[in-house]
């Protein structure tokens, strides 16, 4: 059961949020090209409100549990708070290393160890770009915890699911990203915490008023 978005947000508010996301992700794309020298295509974000205990199900549905899928999570704090979750399906260490133009070791053992670290660095930049741009438009800024990789097995999935409170209402903003010419894609979700929803509604109003 998916609660109606209107229960939490008016349709106006929802439109504003969608608009903010569109602008934010557009800005993020432009700046990402500067930062990592690769054009990252971000799809128009899909916004959903997910309620009480439906989150685990949503996560399960949206995150395929399969070999080689890497999931990473990064929490952010401030008036706007929540988690960024990044899912990289089926990518090899070599592909990942290819996103950054650094010189990485060629031998399998070292590369495997480094893959995790490279993923974390890329994830940190991607999540930070999207969350940062949204925050900017909402007139706030956030701080971040270091990102961590979720071990991709059933235990890892459960840990991810359990890291959210049971009766949490979350606004999920989901986007598909693709590194141009690298054949690497995945998706990014920003989940807002229950506590920041009131603040978010307020911030959306302020955003609107600045245009009136």
């Amino acid at each position: 059961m998916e609660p109606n978005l209107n229960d939490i947000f008016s349709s106006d508010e929802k439109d504003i949020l969608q608009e903010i996301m569109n602008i934010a992700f557009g800005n993020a794309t432009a700046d990402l090209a500067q930062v990592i020298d690769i054009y990252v295509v971000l799809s128009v974000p899909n916004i959903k409100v997910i309620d009480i205990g439906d989150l685990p199900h949503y996560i399960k549905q949206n995150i395929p549990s399969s070999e080689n899928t890497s999931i990473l999570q990064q929490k952010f704090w401030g008036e706007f708070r929540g988690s960024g979750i990044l899912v990289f399906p089926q990518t090899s260490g070599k592909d990942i290393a290819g996103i950054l133009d650094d010189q990485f070791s060629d031998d399998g053992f070292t590369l495997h160890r480094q893959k995790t670290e490279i993923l974390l660095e890329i994830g940190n930049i991607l999540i930070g770009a999207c969350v940062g741009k949204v925050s900017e438009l909402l007139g706030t800024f956030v701080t971040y915890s270091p990102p961590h990789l979720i071990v991709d097995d059933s235990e890892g999935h459960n840990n991810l699911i359990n890291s959210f409170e049971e009766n949490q209402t979350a606004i999920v903003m989901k986007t598909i990203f693709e590194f141009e010419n690298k054949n690497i894609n995945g998706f990014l979700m920003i989940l807002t915490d229950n506590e920041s929803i009131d603040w978010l509604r307020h911030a959306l109003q302020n955003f609107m008023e600045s245009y009136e």
Partner: protein
Amino acid sequence: MIFEQIFNMVNVGIVILDRDLNVRQWNRWMETHSKISGNEIIGKSIFHFFPSLDAPWFKRNCKSVLAFGNFSFLSQKLHKYCFPLKPVNTFGIKFDHMQQNCTMGPLRDQTNVVEYIFLMVHDVTEVAAYEQKLIEMNIKDALTGVYNRRYFESRIEEEFERHKRYKRSFSIIMQDIDYFKKINDTYGHQAGDFILKSFSTSVMSRIRAVDIFARYGGEEFCCMLPETELVSALSVAEDIRKRIEHTTFEFKNTPLNITISQGVSEMKPDTSCAESLLKKADDALYEAKRSGRNRVLNK
């Protein structure tokens, strides 16, 4: 005033850079470990003093702080260190530089615009040393210091996969010390341990750096020779056999002489798995034992 004291008292390196990556603040920790004073470096480009930072990874992270207000976490696992500083203590492991975890983040002006980048440098040499030791304990035999059986088996699997793709030959030698039990029974276990160590040292000094030499169990050892055909592997084994036969190991003024038996096998296109290659070498070793010891045979 108090903040300035904290800035200089904490056991963390703190650097503040402006948008052009010129140094604006340089705390006492940085002065102490880099031997560069604040007076020298403040106002100058960080790259002038640390050219190794003039690299994509560093600039990319600076840009993400400036563009998005990101925090960046530069881990020791990936980067080893940001600033090439002298290690204070290397904890028994050879580190050329202090191992560091660094965090970067934004400092904003009154209108929330990112004006500066702060960098915090944590010395994690001790943790890195422990990790290094754990890795070694996991792959090495405690007594002899050569690789253990588990590591050997994982490497032979890797070599087997490589062979399937690139068809490069490789060989293995199984080795067993003859009448080892007698040494233990006659001279004691300390003498036995001494022989195991001396034998390992002797083999290590004969083989190449790319060869994987491991203690397979008890007095049995194994050597994997990448890119090596049977003929060459046999000649290496024969050379080791002669060396050992002609060496007198001296344990507490008691001269000890040993011989070894060896079985050699080469990876062939029809070898079905890594295990069967080991089995062939083991069979050859058994033959060598049965036919009188102190010899090299192949299968």
